């Protein structure tokens, strides 16, 4: 099976897709390698968060997504 990577907000435009599959397990290095250099650059920005299985990681470099997990890449938000 696989991990689903979801690109939110402007990252969707950078990635050119709303989501992509990757092989499980997926760690931080694997994520950076999978998403392409442009998205990887933005992921290194402190203001970009990563959620795994519905929880925002306090340390995104500790990512360890398992089979069936959804990994969301969350750029700076703007609501209201």
């Amino acid at each position, binding site marked *: 099976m696989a991990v689903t990577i*979801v690109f*939110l*907000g*402007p990252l969707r*435009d950078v990635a050119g897709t709303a989501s992509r599959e990757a092989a499980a397990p997926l760690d931080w290095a694997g994520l950076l390698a999978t998403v392409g250099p442009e998205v990887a650059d933005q992921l290194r920005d402190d203001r970009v968060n990563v*959620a795994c299985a*519905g929880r*925002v990681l306090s340390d995104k470099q500790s990512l360890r997504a398992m089979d069936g997990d*959804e990994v*969301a890449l*969350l*750029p*700076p*938000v*703007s*609501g*209201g």
Partner: protein
Amino acid sequence: MRDIRLLDAPFDPSALIRSFGAANPGLGGVCSFVGEVRGEQDVTALELSHYEPLTLAGMEQLADAAFDRFDLMGLLMVHRIGVIGPGEPIVCVSAAALHRRGAIDAVDFCMDHLKSAAWFWKREQRSDAWHWIEPRADDYADRSRWEK
């Protein structure tokens, strides 16, 4: 009375606020904020996207924080998602309390966090294309007022 919602269709803030007030008998004051899509130059629409597994849960946590921090009787927090036209409401926050201080501060607090600390992304359609909108520096500064 607590009412936290994500809505994917137009809504009437006046009607929500009116029934929210009625649902909090004995209140001393209600403060409400309604944000709308500004009818600016060539902006034809705004789109709010979100991340379903986090967004509503995050709004519930924000409501918890407001109840912990302010002396509140009730809190209404409604946020639109999807494509929204000029003049349509995006967000509505209303707080009921015995005294005005709690009600006004709770609305201010919730709006500051919805602007720059909730899981929404906003883009506007101009005549040429869609443009993503990041929070303004003011929005980050406003939110930092609440850090203890």
